[in-house]
């Protein structure tokens, strides 16, 4: 898998999402629960808006000095025996990871959940070497067993599945014979995964935040699987997006607090793991610790009007409140990054060609902008994308003409008023189902236009002015 999870056209994906009643009820139920929990956990802080300001400041400061902090991080990690590799492209990242696996003659890799490794299609690259890759995050593991079903959410990858479907997958793929009780399912997964942790040659994790001052990598999980991945195999690889860095542990503290509350409404998650390369020949420490810092198009975003998109801490708060995501689910976006942040980020990383609809798949309600703990103006970035698509991309000739016509009419009041007057009886005629030209027809397919009473405000006001002998009208 890479950033793209489907080659089907956008509206086909949307239709599939809308038709999936189960998925939609799972998503809306999860959204409502998460929204409530987030509200409670942020209210406890009392000054949520101040926290958001502070978190935004940290992210902006780090991005503005990214070269400095990355260098500081790399030097500190290397000084302690870590191997830091800067990968400009996903191919470079995968080649480096492959080279480690080859050298170690590894046959099995165990992984903790990581979006960036999905983005670069790392699993496929590893499988090319005849090496097995086992996902250890419960949700990711379920998806992997289910013939590599793609994740539909950044934090809860299997959000679109229910326990019955999971039981069925376990039964079909692993001979599971018990009930769909979540505890029993969880116990089975744990037993299965434990064997994998113990027999893996290499452990691969993502990185929630890298700490520049100490050259450390930190991971936030609820299942503790990242601890198993980082404690058992003797060779460790952490893959991080180049923007996932904080200057010191102090900023990490702030951002982790924001992440946990925004993602799942928790004050903290069950496990927050900090890993620093170590030269000491401790029998419990990994023998090798590699950190792969992935650019894959990020540096092109720096210094542009889209830079704030890199502030993202992958909490999914924007996804959790998005009314569009609520009804179409994560797979409709066709990218491993769904929801508002996906609609902003995917075209930046992958271009417009396959993603032209994404910036338009938003009603611009701004719930995402309001929810973002690091204050990315998501709906404004979607508007910027629309502007760039209109100004720099081909197509949309009819719309272009219509908008130019609109601008002409809206700056020539007489014409605009004439248009309004003429529109009334026309609109009336087309208020019936599925009639009217172009957009009107689409509108009237599901809605009825207001009925006209030949009683326009402008006429009423002017008539009233006349009655009052004028004077007030300007």
């Amino acid at each position, binding site marked *: 898998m890479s950033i793209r999870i489907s080659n089907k056209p956008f509206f086909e994906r949307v239709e599939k999402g809308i038709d999936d009643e189960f998925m939609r009820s799972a998503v809306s139920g999860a959204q*409502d629960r998460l929204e409530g929990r987030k509200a409670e956990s942020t209210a406890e802080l009392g000054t949520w808006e101040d926290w958001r300001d502070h978190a935004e400041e940290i992210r902006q400061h780090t991005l503005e000095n990214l070269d400095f902090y990355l260098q500081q991080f790399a030097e500190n990690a290397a000084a302690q025996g870590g191997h830091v590799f800067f990968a400009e492209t996903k191919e470079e990242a995968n080649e480096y990871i492959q080279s480690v696996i080859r050298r170690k003659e590894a046959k099995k890799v165990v992984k903790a959940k990581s979006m960036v490794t999905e983005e670069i299609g790392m699993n496929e690259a590893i499988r090319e070497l005849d090496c097995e890759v086992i996902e250890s995050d419960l949700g990711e593991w379920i998806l992997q067993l289910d013939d590599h079903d793609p994740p539909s959410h950044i934090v809860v990858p299997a959000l679109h599945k229910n326990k019955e479907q999971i039981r069925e997958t376990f039964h079909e793929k692993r001979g599971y014979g018990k009930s769909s009780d979540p505890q029993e399912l969880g116990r089975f997964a744990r037993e299965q995964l434990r064997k994998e942790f113990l027999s893996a040659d290499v452990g691969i994790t993502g990185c929630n935040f890298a700490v520049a001052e100490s050259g450390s990598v930190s991971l936030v999980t609820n299942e503790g699987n990242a601890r198993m991945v980082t404690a058992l195999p003797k060779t460790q690889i952490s893959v991080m997006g180049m923007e996932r860095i904080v200057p010191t542990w102090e900023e990490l503290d702030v951002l982790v607090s924001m992440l946990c509350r925004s993602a799942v409404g928790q004050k903290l998650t069950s496990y927050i793991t900090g890993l620093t390369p170590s030269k000491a020949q401790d029998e419990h420490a990994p023998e090798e610790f590699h950190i792969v810092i992935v650019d894959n198009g990020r540096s092109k975003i720096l210094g542009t009007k889209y830079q704030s998109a890199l502030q993202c801490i992958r909490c999914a708060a924007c996804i959790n409140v998005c009314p569009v995501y609520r009804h179409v689910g994560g797979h409709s976006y066709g990218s491993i990054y769904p929801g508002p942040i996906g609609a902003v980020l995917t075209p930046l990383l992958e271009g417009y060609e396959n993603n032209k609809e994404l910036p338009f798949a938003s009603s611009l309600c701004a719930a995402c902008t309001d929810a973002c703990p690091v204050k990315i103006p998501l709906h404004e970035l979607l508007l910027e994308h629309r502007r760039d*698509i209109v100004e720099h991309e081909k197509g949309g000739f009819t719309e272009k003409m219509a908008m130019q016509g609109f601008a002409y009419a809206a700056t020539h*009041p007489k014409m605009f008023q004439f248009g309004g007057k003429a529109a009334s009886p026309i609109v009336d005629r087309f208020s019936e189902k599925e009639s009217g030209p172009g957009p009107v027809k689409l509108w009237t397919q599901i809605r009825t236009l207001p009925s006209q009473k030949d009683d326009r405000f*402008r006429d009423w006001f002017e008539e009233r002015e006349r009655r009052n002998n004028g004077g007030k009208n*300007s």
Partner: protein
Amino acid sequence: MNVSLFITCLADAVYPSSVGRSTVEVLERLGCSVSFPRNQTCCGQPAFNSGYHKETQKVARHMIDTFEEAEWVVTPSGSCATMIHEYKKLFSDDEKWQKKAEDLAAKTYELTQFIVDVLGVENVGAEFHGSVTYHSSCHMTRLLGVKEAPRILLENVAGLTLTELPLKEHCCGFGGTFSVKMMPISQQMVDEKVQHIEETKASYLVGSDLGCLMNIGGRIERTGKPVEVLHIAEILNSRGEDAV
């Protein structure tokens, strides 16, 4: 106070005159002198939200010129007021027009915001007998930051029972061109909104933005639900009759 009315294109051309009329009458009852600059057209939102920057700039310049002399600009639409507040972003390379855009934004208010925040009035003396639920428009609540004013005014209407709409801040699926371009998604959103409105058992759905009301009302009418849709100005202007 001299109020220049920005009536919005939907209220002027698509809807019958009652929303505009109610807006004028409520403001006059509260002591304002109301004028209607004839050259006004549209705030430019359809072009802006579709990514047509240059076209929006043209419309914005026209709106700025039209309302340049106004003391206050009041509009019965949260999203159109928001759009005017967005104008300054259109002119980041043009100091002169940016300044003019800021001047217009500073004196432009949505109707209920103007009544509560500028006139300092929380009870307009209206009387309306009926159970009402209120839809919070996205741009008005989140971008313009007006959450309480319509609620305060509705709570003070004699005879009116206000029932909270479940998930009241969820978008109704209008979003201007979104409702057409992304029709299948918009339909799901408006259907969920209509379902929540039905759950309140209220007889009237009230809002402060004709775009949202046209979307929700159009769906209510098509699906034959027994709910009447009203603009908040119509409620604030009612004097005891059951329906407007």
